[in-house]
């Protein structure tokens, strides 16, 4: 059997490693428009800030493809798919037939409808090439404006700051990292950026890009004009569904998949940022472009393709992100407005630490931890396993929270039975 | 009281080159001697609280701690010793009875150490226990005078109930309440594995330990704690506790705060109430009352269980023992004046009662002179320290020995003599859950098994040396002993010859 995978990132690795665990005979072909050995995309901001050298970016060891008997076609884009004939067509005219197809094309940057985007030094920031180009252009002392204060914009700001660039973030929402933080959390994190001279402008976005061949500056909707030697568009990511455009594979925002990562078409699967799977917390399909989810979806897809259905606990957003020594870990629903959500939180300004738990029907559905992030996985576990937290709810905010506050049987079940082979 | 005139008894020496501030000592000391001073970034200690239980010394990962006798002394005075003076300070400050624990620690002579054991040379071969069989099995209980059998060898004698011991050693009475649940768990499990018995003491039998019934001797003491039909019938034997070597003639007092829910259920008394065992059994004011109690206990257990009587070794012990035998007891346990206790007034612990060596010799001789020695078992207690003590006790006339202090030391006790505080850092004489868990029964029972097995091997070696291959042939075999540094009177009472005779 031949398995074709479009995309050369973490979802692909999840799939390949899962397949090869059980099936070493099937043929696997990986096609990607990038030429790099599989690398860690989140590390591009570390690369940008010289915290990580290029060869340290590789996500799996050099002999990953050979060891897993994977044939690679790199640097060539896939232009179309014929899901009935089960063939994939490349931009160089070649075509490859498949028995099973996995679409792991990840996400692509959202481009705002603004003129002047094609000027030089206007960057997007999701791939290695983007980072290299930006790193090349961003000289110490130069000015940079980042459109979008989300995860990508935040990490780009950190990278550029390390290069000695004068950074301004422009965020449409009333706060940076609005998808994962609430106002208190965002104000705490913004503080640490602003202390380093990173300027943050909220409530507006780019109106016009100024400059001729090179970008000179940017005019904001609120009328402000900013100098900019480099402009980074970091509004967000959307699923890169171009490749399935004229096929019968149904899409919403991403390629719709069921719990086994199968798309609406037989033998065609999708995983990672391109896929739109079931989010257990909002109890509906949602694109959750998070690195760990991509690996797990890739793994499930890989197994499904070779006929193994592994039970899967569903996906929900979770992030661990930091700026120098300000670290935050968030998961699930962090900023609910409706009544049925109960908020348990505590903020300690002099330690600059913030803890917020979101509870619904005695289940933990989300949390924000800033600077007090140790053992955050305990809470991730409660969300994932839908643990009834009533017995230990009043201890959640304890600095030394741990299994010790769980009733003994629950603790024993968690600590011993989870992997004790009976 | 304003100022206490007492100075620290011990001094904590901390080698700061070795102390790594890991705070293990601080966490482990229930007497709050050690603490971490963050300004000095150093571990400091309050000598006044130290009782030299050495928990910190043992657990310190870099052996940075040494506890020494505090060098502060009084001017030399042969009569007014260090202890004599400090006892007065304490009583002048408290007005109370001085409490103590474990056994009499005064320098009275230890008669075990004045006796030596025989060995065969030439005229008969010594036996090598590694190559020849050597049997230590002992049956505790009342024995008939003779055997009755019919022509085809069917035994007609009705053998009274016996306790089978694979080695002549039993764990003596320590109640649940004076020692911890885990200590009992270790003792019970060790008794089972060793094929011997442990004594629950007067604190009742915890329901979790009913499963060790066949290796358990339950006590019926003046407080009758935890005594009911099931209690009596679960056990292998019943022991009426008349006295205890550490505190002959007085009762016991377990302070209310030590009586937790668990202990109150086991003792069948309200939680938090002081558990007072009255001095006498209020239904035994004379020897015939004892006979009545013995037979009522036998009735309650349908004559299936041996009923023994434990007395403290006092002046008239020979006559008392003989009376007890006549009263129908199946065995007599005699607790010498060095027997241990969880708590007892210091004066009584240190001054009342006689040494077990004389008690055993006197009782054995008296019962023999009355021709009934072979019909009853004698158990010596208070304080057996090693296997040689056991050989000497049996040679003097005991059938088996009780050990308790030795067992606690095996479990980790460091003889700081502070059991009565209930803050035992080794998890033995305490009910504080933080401390009790420090005695892991899994480790405890193995240590006890090791100790008793080691002693049994040593007994076999000594027996073999004497040319004996069955413990029965050592019982009352006083020719196997010789005395050193004893008066003729002492030799006569012990019934042994002087070395060289």
């Amino acid at each position, binding site marked *: 059997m031949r398995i074709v995978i479009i995309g050369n990132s973490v979802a692909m690795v*999840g799939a390949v490693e899962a397949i090869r665990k059980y099936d070493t005979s099937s043929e696997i072909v990986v096609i990607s428009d990038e030429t790099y050995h599989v690398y*860690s995309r*989140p*590390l591009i901001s*570390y690369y940008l800030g010289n*915290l*990580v050298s290029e060869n*340290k970016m*590789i*996500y799996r060891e050099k002999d990953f493809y050979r060891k897993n008997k994977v044939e690679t076609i790199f640097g060539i884009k896939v232009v179309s798919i014929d899901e009935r004939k089960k063939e994939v067509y490349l931009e160089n005219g070649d075509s490859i037939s498949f028995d099973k197809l996995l679409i792991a094309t990840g996400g692509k940057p959202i481009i705002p409808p603004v003129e002047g985007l094609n000027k030089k030094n206007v960057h997007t920031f999701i791939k290695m090439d983007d980072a290299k180009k930006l790193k090349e252009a961003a000289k110490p002392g130069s000015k940079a404006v980042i459109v979008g204060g989300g995860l990508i914009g935040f990490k780009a700001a950190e990278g550029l700051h390390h290069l000695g660039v004068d950074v301004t973030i422009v965020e449409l929402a009333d706060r940076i990292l609005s998808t994962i933080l609430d106002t208190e959390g965002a104000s705490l994190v913004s503080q640490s950026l602003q202390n380093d001279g990173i300027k943050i402008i909220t409530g507006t976005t780019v109106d016009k890009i100024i400059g001729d061949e090179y970008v000179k500056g940017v005019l904001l909707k609120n009328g402000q004009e900013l100098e900019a030697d480099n402009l980074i568009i970091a509004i967000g990511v959307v699923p890169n569904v171009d490749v399935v455009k004229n096929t019968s594979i149904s899409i919403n925002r991403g390629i719709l998949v069921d719990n086994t990562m199968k798309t609406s078409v037989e033998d065609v699967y999708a995983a990672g940022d391109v896929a739109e799977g079931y989010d257990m917390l909002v109890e509906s399909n949602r694109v959750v472009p998070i*690195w*760990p989810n991509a690996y*797990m979806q890739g*793994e499930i897809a890989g197994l499904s393709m070779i006929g193994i259905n592994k039970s899967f606990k569903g996906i929900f957003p*979770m992030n*661990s992100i*930091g700026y120098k020594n300000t670290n935050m*870990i968030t*998961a699930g629903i962090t900023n609910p407005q409706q009544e049925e959500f109960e908020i348990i939180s505590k903020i300690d300004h002099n330690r600059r630490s913030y803890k917020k738990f979101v509870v619904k029907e005695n289940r933990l559905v989300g949390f924000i931890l800033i600077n007090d*992030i*140790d*053992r*955050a*996985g*305990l809470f*991730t*576990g409660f969300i*994932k*396993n839908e643990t009834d937290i009533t017995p230990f709810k009043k201890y959640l905010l304890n600095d*030394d929270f*741990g*299994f*010790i*506050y769980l009733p*003994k049987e629950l*603790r024993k079940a*968690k*600590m*011993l039975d*989870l*992997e*004790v*082979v009976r | 009281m304003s100022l206490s005139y007492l100075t620290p008894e011990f001094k904590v020496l901390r080698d700061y080159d*070795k102390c*790594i501030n*890991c*705070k*293990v000592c601080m*966490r*482990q000391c229930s007497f709050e001697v050690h603490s971490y001073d963050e300004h000095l970034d150093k571990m400091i200690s309050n000598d006044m609280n130290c009782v030299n239980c050495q928990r910190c010394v*043992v*657990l310190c*990962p*870099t052996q940075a701690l040494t506890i020494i006798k505090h060098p502060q002394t009084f001017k030399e005075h042969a009569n007014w010793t260090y202890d004599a003076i400090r006892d007065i300070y304490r009583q002048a400050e408290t007005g109370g009875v001085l409490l103590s624990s474990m056994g009499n620690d005064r320098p009275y002579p230890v008669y075990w150490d004045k006796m030596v054991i025989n060995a065969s040379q030439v005229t008969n071969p010594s036996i090598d226990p590694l190559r020849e069989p050597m049997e230590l099995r002992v049956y505790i209980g009342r024995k008939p005078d003779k055997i009755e059998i019919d022509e085809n060898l069917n035994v007609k004698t009705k053998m009274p109930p016996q306790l089978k011991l694979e080695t002549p050693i039993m764990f003596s009475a320590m109640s649940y309440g004076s020692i911890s649940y885990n200590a009992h768990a270790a003792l019970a499990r060790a008794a089972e594995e060793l094929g011997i018995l442990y004594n629950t003491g007067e604190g009742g039998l915890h329901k979790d330990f009913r499963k060790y019934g066949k290796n358990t001797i339950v006590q019926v003491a003046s407080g009758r704690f935890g005594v009911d039909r099931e209690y009596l019938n679960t056990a292998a034997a019943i022991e009426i506790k008349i006295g205890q070597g550490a505190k002959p003639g007085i009762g016991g007092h377990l302070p209310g705060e030590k009586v937790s829910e668990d202990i109150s259920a086991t003792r069948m008394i309200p939680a938090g109430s002081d558990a007072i065992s009255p001095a006498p059994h209020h239904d035994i004011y004379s020897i015939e009352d004892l006979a009545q109690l013995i037979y009522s206990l036998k009735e309650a257990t349908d004559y299936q269980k041996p009923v023994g009587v434990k007395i403290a070794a006092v002046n008239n012990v020979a006559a008392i023992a003989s009376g007890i035998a006549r009263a129908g007891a199946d065995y007599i346990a005699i607790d010498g004046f060095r027997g241990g206790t969880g708590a007892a007034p210091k004066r009584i612990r240190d001054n009342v009662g006689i040494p077990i060596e004389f008690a055993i010799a006197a009782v054995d001789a008296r019962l023999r002179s009355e021709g009934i020695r072979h019909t009853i078992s004698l158990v010596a207690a208070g304080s057996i320290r090693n296997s040689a003590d056991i050989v000497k006790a049996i040679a003097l006339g005991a059938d088996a020995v009780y050990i308790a202090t030795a067992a606690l030391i095996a479990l980790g006790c460091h003889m700081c003599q502070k059991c009565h505080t209930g803050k035992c850092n080794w998890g033995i004489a305490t009910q504080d859950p*933080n401390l009790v*868990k*420090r005695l*892991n029964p*899994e*480790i405890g029972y193995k240590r006890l098994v090791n100790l008793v097995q080691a002693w049994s091997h040593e007994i076999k070696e000594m027996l073999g040396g004497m040319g004996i291959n069955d413990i029965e042939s050592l019982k009352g075999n006083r020719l196997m002993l010789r005395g050193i540094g004893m008066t003729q009177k002492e030799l006569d009472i012990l019934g042994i010859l002087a070395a060289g005779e």
Partner: protein
Amino acid sequence: MKKVYVKEEVCVGCRLCEVYCITSHSKYKDVLKAFKLETQRPTPRIVIEENKPVSFSLQCRHCNDAPCVKSCITGAMQKDPSTGVVICDTDKCVGCWTCVLVCEFGAIIRDVNNKVASKCDLCAEAGEPACVKNCPNEALVYSEGGISA
């Protein structure tokens, strides 16, 4: 594979497991030197929880389906296929703490000095984990398949 299991009923909260975990991962492998000489004391790979009278220690469970391995953005966290031990390659790790986010046991500790994830490696070279070897009360058991009743 053999793992470390804790019997909380007999953990005395002395934290010697932590002392010896640090020592076992120190340069000198000697308690005294590890604490006295090494300016930057290694991070313990064991978490100790205490709420008197209960206390116990906890370390990485080396899960079969390890979320930390799957979620690690750099590929630093790997489960050794032969020994089953999950080990963090500290050269590759950038200290993003995603593993801390996903480890349900909270058994991955942040080595803030070196900004890398610090976790139990079962003292792979020494054969028996230092915490098990030095627990004064045998509260830690290194066995296959859990603790017998």
